[in-house]
């Protein structure tokens, strides 16, 4: 199949449609707006629904509603809109409704720098909503990865009945690259209940951890609530039932870390210095790592594709192998480096941070590399 020269945000739309998304509700915001515009153009022709809502809160509410009715659904936004979505993101996590939320990140806090890239939503994507809750966050760094990981986001959301956040910065969103739009990607759809409606308890997971939620209108009548609930979905105040729910919600992700955590490791086996990155900084890191290897320096690179759950086991293992130094470039004051420091000693981490809206350049990383060596 031939490649098409398209923008990151366009690849996101193509990936979503390939994954089976047929519902999009959103609100205009830079730098994600192209996703809404393309959905508005493409979804009607596929018999799908596009809606421009009154705000981001309504947007995420509408896609959760659509997903409850059995349709794969997505919204796209950026920092301020993502902040507004947090409460309902938690609702989807609690009620176990699969949705995909795209956050094309821009400079913050507040209105910040709308047209420039940032990675300041790394922690918000994981911990933005109140309460312990499950969530998966994926981070593409190229236009091809935007396409692939959008499909993966839908697959993981349907498989684990969990909201998935696709996080990429403005540069990845607006970058144009050649992309192969595979027509044969594996598509996962949520399981339908096996028991007849009269025996159905929506949140009874049997030996597994993942509920089989029937679409509304399919003959399985049940109650769904953001309140702590029992297996019938009805609110409960029973301490053991509440505890079991919160722990199961966590376990369904934690016990599947191997399946969910995706990354690329380049030349790490003998590496004495390792770049750890995602998004636009990864692109500079890739170039510097390659040049360093060409010079015969033992430099490796880990690209994170899954940000959350965070791959601590990978970092612990990689660090233990050669006692390697890590260079962590990011477009924030160090949110990724802080998380990484739970498994790599702080004094073995060199931080390269930029918060002025500009990119981290290969020259900056070369300098950081010299500093370490």
């Amino acid at each position, binding site marked *: 199949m031939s490649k098409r020269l398209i923008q990151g945000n366009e690849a996101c739309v193509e990936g979503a449609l390939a994954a089976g998304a047929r*519902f999009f*509700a959103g609100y205009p915001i830079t730098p994600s707006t192209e996703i809404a515009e393309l959905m508005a153009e493409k979804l*009607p*022709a596929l*018999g799908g*629904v596009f*809606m421009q*809502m*009154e*705000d981001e*809160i*309504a*947007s995420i*509410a*509408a*896609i*959760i*509603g*659509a*997903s*409850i*009715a*059995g*349709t794969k*659904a997505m919204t796209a936004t950026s920092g301020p809109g993502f902040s507004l979505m947090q*409460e*309902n993101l938690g*609702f989807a996590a609690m009620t176990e409704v699969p949705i995909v939320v795209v956050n094309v990140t821009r400079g913050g806090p507040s209105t910040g720098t709308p047209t420039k890239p940032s990675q300041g939503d790394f922690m918000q994507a994981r911990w933005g909503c109140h309460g312990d809750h499950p969530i998966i966050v994926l981070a593409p760094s190229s236009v091809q990865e935007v396409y692939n990981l959008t499909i993966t986001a839908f697959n993981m959301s349907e498989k684990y009945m969990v909201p998935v956040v696709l996080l990429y910065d403005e540069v990845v969103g607006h970058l144009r690259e050649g992309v192969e739009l595979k027509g044969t990607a594996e598509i996962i759809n949520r399981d339908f209940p096996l028991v007849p409606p009269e025996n159905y308890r929506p949140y009874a997971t049997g030996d597994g951890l993942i509920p089989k939620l029937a*679409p*509304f*209108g*399919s*003959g399985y*009548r*049940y*109650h*769904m*609530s*953001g*309140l702590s609930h029992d297996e019938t979905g*009805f*609110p409960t105040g029973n301490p053991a039932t509440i505890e079991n729910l919160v722990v199961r919600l966590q376990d369904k992700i934690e016990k599947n870390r191997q399946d969910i955590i995706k990354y690329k490791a380049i030349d790490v086996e003998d590496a004495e210095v390792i770049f750890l990155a995602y998004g636009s900084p990864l692109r500079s890191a890739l170039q510097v790592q390659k040049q360093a290897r060409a010079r015969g320096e033992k430099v490796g690179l880990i690209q994170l594709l899954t940000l959350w759950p965070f791959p601590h086991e990978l970092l612990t293992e990689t660090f233990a192998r050669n006692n390697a130094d890590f260079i962590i470039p990011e477009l924030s004051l160090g949110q990724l480096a802080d998380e990484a420091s739970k498994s790599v000693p702080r004094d073995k981490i060199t931080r390269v941070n930029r918060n002025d809206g500009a990119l981290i350049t290969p020259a900056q990383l070369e300098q950081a590399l010299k500093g370490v060596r």
Partner: protein
Amino acid sequence: MKYKDFLRKDKMPHIWCPGCGHGMVLSSFLRALAKREYHPDKVAVISGIGCSSRASGYLNFNTLHTTHGRAIPFATGIKMAKPELKVVVLTGDGDSAAIGGNHLIHAARRNIELTVIVFNNNIYGMTSGQYSPLTPHMRLATTAPYGNIDYPFDLVKLAEGAGASFVARGATAQPRHLEKIIGQGLDHNGFSLIEVITQCPTYFGRKNRMGSAVDMLQWQRDNTSTTGKEGKIPLGIFVQEERPEYCANYHHLVKTVAEGKGSE
């Protein structure tokens, strides 16, 4: 079907206080529904947060108890994904007119076929008696200990101004009338809003010395009118117009695009 068949009896007793009017609103709604031909599998009841919004849990339909103020956009997503479902929103005065006010006016503007029943007890009951956008001027609440200096919305006028094609007001003191107007709201092909005046003797009534639930119902009788009497709160249907419905408009758009005609 009988209206009692629509209840999840195993989820009783309900959480509402003695004398609360919410059960009366619910029974009027269910009686109206029972007279119509909806299969329970094809009815979805969506609620927000608050006393009124606990109603969804007691109903044997597809029921969704959402976040505060957001029942309407959740319902919008369900309706657009499955237009064949009858989608009803049960909400309160705080849920629909304060935190959810923006969603209310936009759903009205779109004229999407949702039946929105607002349980208006003039107070936040779940959090024990704070003033809402429908608490009358200078009435008392725990957050208005010296009287509420805010002026309330007239929800009927708000919905009408926002473009709702069916707007009505009923009261728990007039249950047969209420059942009738909710029924007409259910039959309406477009956005319908039914405000229901209901009594909260525990918080609004007690704080404002309105007496028992029976006294509050008598107050409703004395201060409302189904015949437009001067100086009384009017009850009845105020807007009932046939206008293009949102799902139908979207379906038409999809058909047009599929036929390659583009915009017409």
